[in-house]
C-alpha cells in the first residue's frame, strides 16, 4: 500500500468498532459497559435527530418525545400484557411513527422553520402532562418500573451486544437514507427549493417519509432503552437530555454523518467521567462545547476535515 492510499478515517472507524466489539471480552467492566450502552442509545437519538434537522432541514425539537413515546408504549405493553418485548419494541416504534407523523409531520408541512420548532416542542411538552393524567397506566411522575427485560436472565454483556448491533443497524439505515433518493431530495430542496420542485421533487412526500423514518427509528431506540433500564419516567423528557442530545449534534457537525455519533462519544463519556468534578460537570462540558464550536463551527466533522487537509498537504509536500 502506498502512502497516498492510506485512509486514516477508515482505519480509525475499523479500530473504533473493533475496540467496542472486543471491550466486553478484553476488560468488561460492567459500569463502563453501561456507559457504552448509553452511548449507543444516545448516538442513535442524536443521529436520527440530525437526519431530520441537519439533512432534511426540518427544525424539529421534539425528538426526545419521539424517543419517550416508543419507550413508554413498549414498556406498557410488555408490562401490562406480558407480550414479548421484541414485539412491543416494534409496536412502540410504530406508535411513535404514527403519532409523530400525524401530529407533527402533517402540520409541519404547512409550517416553516421556527414554527415547526415550536410545534414539535409543544408536542413533546404535552407528554409529561399526558403522563401524569394517565397515572394508572404510565405511572405518572413516578414513572414506569419493573419493565420486563428483553429475555429472562439477560446479562450486561448480552445487553451490550444487542445495543451494539442496534447501533450498527440503525446507523447503516441512516447512512442508506442519506444516500438514497430521499437524501438527494433534501439536499436539492435545501439548495434551491423552487428548482427542486420543478425537477419533480415532491416536497411533502419526502418530508413525511423522513418524519416517519426518524420517529420509527427513534421510537425503537426508546424501546430498547427502557427494556434495558427496566424503567422510564418523565425525567427523560426534562431539559437535560434534550440539551445533551442537541449538544451531540452541534458538536459532531449538523448535517454531517456520522457527526452526531462523535458528538455522543464526547458528551456521554464526558458526562460520566466529569462526574468527578461534581457540580462543575455541566459547566466544564459547556466550556468544551463552546471551545469546539468556536474553533470549528462545523463541529468535530470540520475538525476531521481540517486534519484531512493537513495530511493532504503533507502528502503533496512529500511527493515533491
Amino acid at each position, binding site marked *: 500500500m502506498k502512502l497516498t492510499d492510506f485512509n486514516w478515517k477508515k482505519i480509525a472507524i475499523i479500530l473504533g468498532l473493533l475496540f467496542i466489539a472486543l471491550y466486553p471480552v478484553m476488560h468488561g467492566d460492567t459500569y463502563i459497559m453501561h456507559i457504552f450502552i448509553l452511548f449507543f442509545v444516545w448516538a442513535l437519538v442524536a443521529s436520527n435527530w440530525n437526519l431530520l434537522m441537519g439533512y432534511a432541514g426540518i427544525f424539529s425539537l421534539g425528538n426526545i418525545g419521539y424517543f419517550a413515546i416508543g419507550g413508554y408504549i413498549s414498556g406498557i405493553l410488555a408490562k401490562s400484557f406480558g407480550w414479548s418485548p421484541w414485539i412491543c419494541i416494534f409496536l412502540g416504534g410504530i406508535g411513535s411513527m404514527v403519532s409523530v407523523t400525524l401530529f407533527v409531520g402533517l402540520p409541519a408541512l404547512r409550517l416553516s422553520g421556527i414554527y415547526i420548532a415550536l410545534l414539535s416542542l409543544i408536542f413533546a411538552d404535552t407528554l409529561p402532562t399526558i403522563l401524569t393524567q394517565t397515572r394508572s397506566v404510565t405511572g405518572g411522575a413516578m414513572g414506569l418500573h419493573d419493565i420486563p427485560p428483553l429475555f429472562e436472565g439477560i446479562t450486561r454483556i448480552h445487553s451490550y451486544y444487542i445495543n451494539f448491533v442496534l447501533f450498527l443497524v440503525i446507523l447503516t439505515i441512516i447512512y442508506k437514507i442519506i444516500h438514497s433518493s430521499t437524501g438527494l431530495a433534501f439536499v436539492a430542496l435545501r*439548495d434551491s427549493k*423552487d*428548482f427542486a420542485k420543478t*425537477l419533480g421533487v415532491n416536497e411533502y412526500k419526502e418530508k413525511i417519509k423522513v418524519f416517519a423514518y426518524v420517529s420509527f427509528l427513534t421510537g425503537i431506540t426508546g424501546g430498547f432503552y427502557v427494556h434495558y433500564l427496566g424503567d422510564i419516567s418523565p425525567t427523560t423528557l426534562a431539559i437535560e437530555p434534550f440539551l445533551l442530545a442537541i449538544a451531540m449534534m452541534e458538536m459532531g457537525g449538523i448535517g454531517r454523518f456520522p457527526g452526531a455519533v462523535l458528538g455522543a462519544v464526547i458528551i456521554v463519556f464526558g458526562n460520566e467521567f466529569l462526574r468527578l468534578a461534581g457540580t462543575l460537570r455541566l459547566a466544564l462540558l459547556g466550556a468544551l462545547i463552546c471551545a469546539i464550536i468556536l474553533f470549528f463551527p462545523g463541529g468535530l466533522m470540520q475538525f476531521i476535515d481540517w486534519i484531512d487537509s493537513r495530511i493532504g498537504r503533507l502528502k503533496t509536500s512529500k511527493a515533491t
Partner: protein
Amino acid sequence: MILETKKVSKAFGRIEALIDVNMTVRKGEIFGIAGPNGAGKSTLFNVISGTFSPSSGQIVFEGKDITKLNAHRICHLGLARTFQIPQTFPTLSVYDNLRVGATFGGKIGRELEKRIQETLGFLNLTSFRDALASNLDLYTTKLVMMAACLATGCRLLMLDEPLAGLSMTEINAFLEVVRKINGGHGTTVLIIEHILDSLIDVSDRMLILHNGAVICVGEPNEVCQDPKVIEVYLGEGEDSQ
C-alpha cells in the same frame, strides 16, 4: 400543439402581471417570448410550470389540463423549466444535479445512469461531471441548469432568459446547444429573451408581451415589422438612454 394557455391572467395584488394571455406552442418548434422588463414573461413561466397558479384562465399541456397541478406533478408530465436567476444545487456535483432531475422527474429506474451520462455527453459537460456546481462559471451553470431539466426527459423545455449576462461568443454557443436539443431530441423549446436579435435568430415563431398582454405573435420577420412591437422597443430604447 403541445402547450396552450387560454385567457390566462395573474394578478399580484393590484399589479396585473398577465392579462388574458392566449398562446399556443406547436410540437417540435422553438418558440420565443420577448418583451420589455416587467412585461410578465417570467410570470407566464411561473404560472405554466406550477410555481404559481393563475388568477384565471386555463393551461393545457399535451391535451391535459395542468392549471391546478403542483410544480412537481407538471414536471412528471414532461415539462421542465429553467430560472432567470440561475439555479443549481451548489453543494452537489454536476452529476448529482442531473441525478435530481433524472430521479424525480424521470421516473426511469434502471435507465437512470444511462440517461445522465447521455445528457452530460449531449451538452459536452462530461468533463465537469464531478465538479461542484458552486464552482462553475455562469455559462456552465446555465448549461447544468438546463441539463438537469433535460435529465427529466421533458418534451417541453422552457428557458427563462438563458442568454442574460453571457458574452457574444457564449450566446452563440448557447443558441447552438438549444438548436441541437431541439433538433436532436425533438424537444419543443420555449425561450424568453428580451434582446430581440438573438431571439429572432433562434425562434421559429415568437410572441411579444407588453404590460402583461400579448401584442403580437407570428414568424420572427413578421413580428419585428409590426408597428406595435417597434413602438414598444423604440420606447424602451429611449427610456434606457
